[in-house]
C-alpha cells in the first residue's frame, strides 16, 4: 500500500472528510461511553444540549472557545510560515501576568477607554517577547524552535509562579499564590448579561477576519506564505526572510499573549498557575483542525469547545467520569488529522 499525492482536491472530499472525522470521533467516544454503562444516543443528545441547549451552555461554550480562537490563530499564523511555535502556552501566561502587573503596579488608575486597549497591547507584547527568544535562536544559531518554544512554556509558567509567589502576590489572597487583581474597570464588558461571555469573543472573531484579510490580501501575507512554503524560493523572489519571520512571530506570539490578557480581563480577573487548562496546546489542535485557515480557526475553536463543554456537561448528567470530555476532544483531533491527510493523498495499491 502506498500513498500518492493528489494533484486536485475534489470539493466533495473537502466537505466530507471533516464530517467523517467527527462521526468517527463520536463513534469511538460512544464505545467508551457505553463501556461506562451510559446510553450512547442519550449521551450524544446531551453533548449537543450541554453545549448549546440553553443560554448558559451556549454562552459557556463560546466563552471557552474565545481563548482557543486566539491561541489557534497564533498557531495557524506561525505554522503557515513554517514557524513551529509550540510555545503558545507560555506566551499565554506571560500575556496574562503582564496584564496583571501593568494593571496593579503601573496603569491601574487610567480611565477604562485608555486602560483597556493599553492592557491588551501590553499582553500582546509580552507574548511577542517570549516567542522572539526561540526565533532569535533559530535565526542566529539555527536551533529548531519546536523544542525551544516548548521549553519556554515551562520557564514562563515557573516565572509566573515566582511572580505570584513574590512581587505580584495578592496580599488579600490569604497566602494563595495568585496575582493582584486587575482593576475592576479594566475588566472587559460582558457581551451577554448574567453570563461569562465577554467582548473578548468579538475581539477574537474580529482578529480572525483581520488575519484572514492579511493573509489573503496583503503583501506581508503573501510573503510570509512564500517564506513558509519555500524559503529559498522566497529569498530569490526578494522576500526578506528574517524580517518576515520576525513579523510572523510577533503576530503569533502577540495573539497568544493577547489570549492570556483577554482571559484575565474577561473572565478570571487575576492570574494563577492554573489559569490555562492547556489553551496553548489546544490552540495547535484547533489550528490543525482548521487546516491553518484563520476563519476556519473560529469554527474549529467553537467545535473544540462544543465537544469539551458538551461532553463535560454530558458526563455530569449521566454520571460518567468527567474525563470523557478530554477524551472526546483528543479523538476528534486524531480522526481529523487522519481525515485531512486523505484530502491530500490517496491510497494506491
Amino acid at each position, binding site marked *: 500500500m*502506498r*500513498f500518492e*499525492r493528489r494533484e486536485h482536491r475534489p470539493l466533495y472530499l473537502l466537505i466530507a472528510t471533516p464530517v467523517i472525522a467527527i462521526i468517527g470521533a463520536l463513534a469511538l467516544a460512544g464505545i*467508551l461511553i457505553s*463501556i*461506562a454503562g451510559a446510553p450512547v444516543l442519550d449521551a450524544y443528545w446531551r453533548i449537543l444540549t450541554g453545549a448549546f441547549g440553553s443560554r448558559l451552555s451556549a454562552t459557556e461554550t463560546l466563552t471557552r472557545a474565545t481563548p482557543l480562537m486566539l491561541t489557534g490563530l497564533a498557531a495557524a499564523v506561525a505554522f503557515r510560515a513554517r514557524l*513551529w511555535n*509550540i510555545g503558545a502556552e507560555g506566551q499565554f501566561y506571560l500575556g496574562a501576568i503582564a496584564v496583571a502587573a501593568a494593571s496593579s503596579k503601573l496603569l491601574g488608575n487610567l480611565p477604562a477607554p485608555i486602560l483597556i486597549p493599553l492592557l491588551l497591547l501590553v499582553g500582546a507584547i509580552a507574548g511577542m517577547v517570549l516567542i522572539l527568544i526561540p526565533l532569535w*535562536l533559530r535565526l*542566529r*544559531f*539555527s*536551533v*529548531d524552535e*519546536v*523544542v*525551544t518554544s*516548548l*521549553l*519556554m*512554556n*515551562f*520557564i514562563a509558567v*515557573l*516565572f509566573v*509562579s*515566582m511572580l505570584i*509567589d*513574590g512581587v505580584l502576590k495578592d496580599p488579600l489572597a490569604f497566602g494563595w499564590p495568585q496575582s493582584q487583581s486587575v482593576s475592576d474597570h479594566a475588566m472587559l464588558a460582558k457581551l451577554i448579561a448574567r453570563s461569562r461571555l465577554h467582548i473578548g469573543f468579538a475581539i477574537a472573531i474580529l482578529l480572525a477576519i483581520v488575519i484572514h484579510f492579511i493573509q489573503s490580501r496583503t503583501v506581508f501575507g503573501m510573503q510570509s506564505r512564500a517564506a513558509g512554503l519555500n524559503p529559498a524560493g522566497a529569498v530569490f523572489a526578494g522576500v526578506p526572510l528574517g524580517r518576515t519571520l520576525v513579523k510572523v512571530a510577533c503576530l503569533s506570539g502577540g495573539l497568544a499573549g493577547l489570549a492570556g490578557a483577554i482571559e484575565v480581563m474577561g473572565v478570571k480577573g487575576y492570574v494563577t498557575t492554573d489559569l490555562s487548562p492547556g489553551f496553548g*496546546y489546544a490552540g*495547535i*489542535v484547533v489550528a*490543525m483542525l482548521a487546516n491553518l485557515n484563520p476563519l476556519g480557526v473560529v469554527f474549529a475553536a467553537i467545535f473544540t469547545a462544543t465537544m469539551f463543554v458538551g461532553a463535560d456537561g454530558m458526563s455530569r448528567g449521566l454520571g*460518567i*467520569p468527567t*474525563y*470523557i*470530555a*478530554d*477524551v472526546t*476532544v*483528543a*479523538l476528534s*483531533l*486524531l480522526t481529523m*488529522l*487522519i481525515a485531512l*491527510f486523505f484530502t491530500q*493523498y490517496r491510497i494506491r495499491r
Partner: protein
Amino acid sequence: MTQLFDIIASAGLWAAILRIATPLIFGTLGALLCERAGVLNLGIEGIMTFGAMIGWLSVYHGADLWTGLLIAAIAGGVFGLLHAGLTVTLGLSQHVAGLGVTLFASSFSYYVFRLIVPLANTPPTIVPFQPIAIPGLSTLPFVGPAFFTQTAPTYLAILIALLMAYIFFRTPVGLAIRMTGENPHAAEAQGVNPMKVRYGAVIAGSALMGMGGAFLTLSAFNSFFPTMVQGRGWICIALVVFASWRPGRALFGALLFAFFDAFQLRLQTALSGLVPYQLFLMTPYILSIAALAIMARRARVPQALMQPYRRGER
C-alpha cells in the same frame, strides 16, 4: 554555607537523586531512541501517564510487579504504534501528532482509571518495589546508602542507558537507527528499511516511556492518581536535547535534573525559601536551551528529525 555542604554530603540526597531521576531516565531514553530514528515523540507525557495507570492497575488486580512493568511497556508500545502510524506511515507533522497522542493517552488513562477503580477515601494502594541492598556495596559508608539501596527498576534504567549506548555505537542495528535518523534515503539505499526502523524505534522508545510512567506508581509511589506525571515527559524531551542525543549524557542529564529537584526540597527545609524554588526548577530548561544553542552549530541533531520519509516520493 555549612548547611549547603551538609545537604550535599548527605547520602539521603544522593539516594533521592537516583530515585527522582529514574522515571526521567526511562523517558529520556525512550524519547532519545525515537529521535535517533528521526521521529519526535511528543506523545511522551501521555504515554507515561498511561504506563503509570496501567502498570498500577495490573498490579492492583493481582499481577506481580514485574508483570505490571511489562504491561506498562507493552501499553507504551501500543501508543508508540499509534504515533508511528500517524508520523511514519502517514507522515503527518510529528509534533501535532505527538500532542494528539498525549492528549488522548492521558485523558484516556484517567477515564479508564475512574471506570475501573471505585471511588475511595484515599487512593487504593499496592505494595511497590522495595529497595534492594546490593550485597557488599550497600554497606559501604555513604556510597552504599546513596547508590546501592535502590529499587530494581532504578538499576534497570541505568542498565538500559548503558545498553542503549552500546547498541547505538557498537552494533549494526544501532548504526541502522542512527542512519535512519540522519538520512532515511541513504538507509534505504543500503537495504535498511527506514519505515521498519522508525516503527521499531518509536515502539521500543514508547515502551520505555511507559516503563518510566510505571515507575511512578510501582516504585516511587504506590497508587495512581490523575495528573501524577506532572510534566515529567516534557522534561525528558528537553533532556534529550541537553544530552545531545547520547544515552550516556541522557543519564547524566536526568541525574542533574533530579539533583536540582532533590536539592531544592532539602534546601527549602534548611533555608525556608530564601531563593525562590522556581529558579531551581527553571535551571534545567535554561541549560537545555543553552546546550541546544551551542550544539546546533555543530549540527549533531539527527538531520532527518521531524522529516517524514515517504517512499518513492521526491
